[in-house]
């Protein structure tokens, strides 16, 4: 089963690398932030698959942090800049 988990993680890693293309040359900032979201979700899946392949259940904790980090960073990146009147 280890080979299957590794092959699945490899496919997901390829998907993430392709998604990075959009992050690098996305025309608007929103596209780049979408790339962050894709990388967060796919990264969680890769971590869980690696945890199954290497028999390391502790990687689920790292996946949990990834989920939190993706949500928080999307929220931080989409925050509006304060204009001088509001600040």
């Amino acid at each position, binding site marked *: 089963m280890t080979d299957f988990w*590794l092959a699945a993680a490899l496919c997901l890693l*390829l998907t993430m690398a392709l998604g990075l293309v959009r992050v690098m040359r996305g025309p608007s900032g929103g596209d780049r932030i979408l790339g962050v979201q894709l990388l967060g979700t796919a990264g969680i899946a890769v971590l869980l698959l690696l945890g199954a392949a290497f028999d390391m259940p502790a990687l689920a*904790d790292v996946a949990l942090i990834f989920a939190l980090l993706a949500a928080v*960073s999307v929220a931080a990146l989409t925050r509006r800049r304060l204009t001088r009147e509001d600040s």
Partner: protein
Amino acid sequence: MTAPLLLAFDLILIATLLALASAALLARDARHAVMLFILFGLWLALVWARLGAPDVALAEAAIGAGLGGALMLAAARRAARAAARDETPDTSGETP
């Protein structure tokens, strides 16, 4: 079968890590650079997980990418605001 899979996995992981690092260094806008830095931290956490160090991956994701990224984003935003203020001085009156 496991060894070539691991080799391919490592090669893709490292190639993308280097690409992300150079993109973050060469980004022209500060906020793009910070965003790429956050992604770099996520990717580095994946590398640590692959190397079998979940605790280091945890620290890298939480501190390196999360806390550092948020602080740098705030700093970049503040710097951009200061630059915009310097460019267009307001007409309400010069400071004496």
